[in-house]
């Protein structure tokens, strides 16, 4: 792998990403401000007890979208300019690692600012991690960075799979997988397997999230998410290494 090509690959793949992060965090900040004002008004006018406000899941969805959106355009451009699939892939991994840590830091910063501003309103601005584990800032950063890397890896893998599939298969997989996961499996689970699938899912999720009993273990989700992110990128590479440029 030529270092120059790796740097160029990273630069190219990251070119629009900074803009999209700026737009995303701009929107998140606006949403925070609007919701804060609404919550404060509701509390003062109607005496309604405010609930919980955090934007963790929005960042996860955004990370997934960055993974989904970037593949095709980057692939054809980099192939056009003599960059191998391997170099492109490692460029994407490097961007994902840096971006995930960056998003975790940006989230933490935004969260800290709004926590400070909304200190006396009674509104619970704790993140999901704070509520679930209460394990401090370093663990929270690691948790969210791993979660964002997993989401971005999943998006990237899905994008490559769809790029490689023939048109008919794109439709079949696009419609079939959600139907299988959200209709067929629950029905099979309820009527044929008497909840064995949901039991297995619950068991798996509990172990991934480190909530198997007693005090929640914050290390478990961090390690699980990081491992799953690595697995997603491994699957993405296995799919990408044989991808042909489709004209």
């Amino acid at each position, binding site marked *: *792998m030529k270092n120059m090509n790796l740097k160029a690959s990273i630069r190219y793949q990251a070119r629009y990403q900074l803009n999209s992060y700026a737009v995303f965090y701009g929107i998140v900040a606006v949403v925070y401000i609007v919701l804060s004002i609404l919550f404060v008004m509701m509390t003062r006018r109607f005496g309604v007890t405010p609930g919980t406000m955090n934007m963790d899941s929005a960042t996860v969805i955004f990370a997934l979208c960055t993974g989904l959106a970037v593949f095709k355009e980057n692939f054809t*451009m980099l192939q*056009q300019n003599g960059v191998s699939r391997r170099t492109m892939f490692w460029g994407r991994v490097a961007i994902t690692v840096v971006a995930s840590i960056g998003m975790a830091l940006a989230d933490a910063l935004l969260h800290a600012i709004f926590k400070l501003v909304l200190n006396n309103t009674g509104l619970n601005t704790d993140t999901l991690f704070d509520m679930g584990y209460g394990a401090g800032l370093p663990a929270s950063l690691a948790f969210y960075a791993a979660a964002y890397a997993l989401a971005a890896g999943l998006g990237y893998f899905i994008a490559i799979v769809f790029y490689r599939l023939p048109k008919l298969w794109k439709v079949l997989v696009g419609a079939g997988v959600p139907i299988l996961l959200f209709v067929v499996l629950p029905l099979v689970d309820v009527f044929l397997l008497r909840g064995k699938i949901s039991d297995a899912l619950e068991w798996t999720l509990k172990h991934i999230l480190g909530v198997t009993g007693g005090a929640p273990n914050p290390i478990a989700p961090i390690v699980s998410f990081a491992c799953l992110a690595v697995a997603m990128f491994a699957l993405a590479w296995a799919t990408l290494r044989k991808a*042909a*440029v489709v*004209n």
Partner: protein
Amino acid sequence: MIEIKNLTKRYGRGDGATTALDNVSLTFEDNKIYGLLGRNGAGKTTLLNVITGRIFADGGAALADGASTRENDTALGSIYLMSEKSGYPDNMRVREGLRWTATFYPEYDAAFADSLCRRFELDTKKRVKSLSTGYASIFKLIVALSSGAKHVLLDEPVLGLDANHRDLFYRVLLERYAEKPSTVVVSTHLVEEVSAVIEDVVIIKRGKLLLEQSRDELLASGYTVAGFADRVNAFAQGRRVIGEDALGGLKTAYIMGARPEVTPDGLELSRIDLQKLFVQLTND
């Protein structure tokens, strides 16, 4: 130098499979302009795509300066392929596309690219998607010729270009080649046009290498004989005739072999042109 060793590429599976390249071996030497010729579906584009690793061969290898081009940045970086479909994003502006090419190709010649943009009157503020077919080809040509790559592969480079721009392209190609020689492979259907600029000819027919020869040798290897049909037929007896055209009582035969020093009575002997030779060689 690009070496192609026993390349085989099939599309599809089972009975419906098509063999696009069938055990093709050839060499594109340094600092030569090649014409890669073949009829539609002969396998020219497939060959160029395999060389640049955009698609994978089922067998064989493509080497650039001795190194496999498969997932090899150094080898791939020595090649620039201008193909029918540009890899540049549709919403990218032309000037951005030129700038990014400079990022990937260290020998990219920005001054030369600027001069070509002016000569071809390409508006660099436009987005790639808004370029007409002709100007899209011009954009791709400018990038390819300015890339500074050691091996430049041009797949149908004059697609959509008007006669003036085609003429300008051939002049620019020769100017650039004289100034900074490189290996240039021009894959095209416009055989007659490209005939004046190429040094060597590679002809592919149904995925197989039909011919790899210098243009001058090739053109000297045959001749045409024209005249009344009976005289042409008599002359052609015992000679290797690769094709014939007849109109009324007149006939033209395309004959391979050394041209006779003395022209027989009532017949006209002339140099065979590349297009006629190509047509006769690639006809079924």
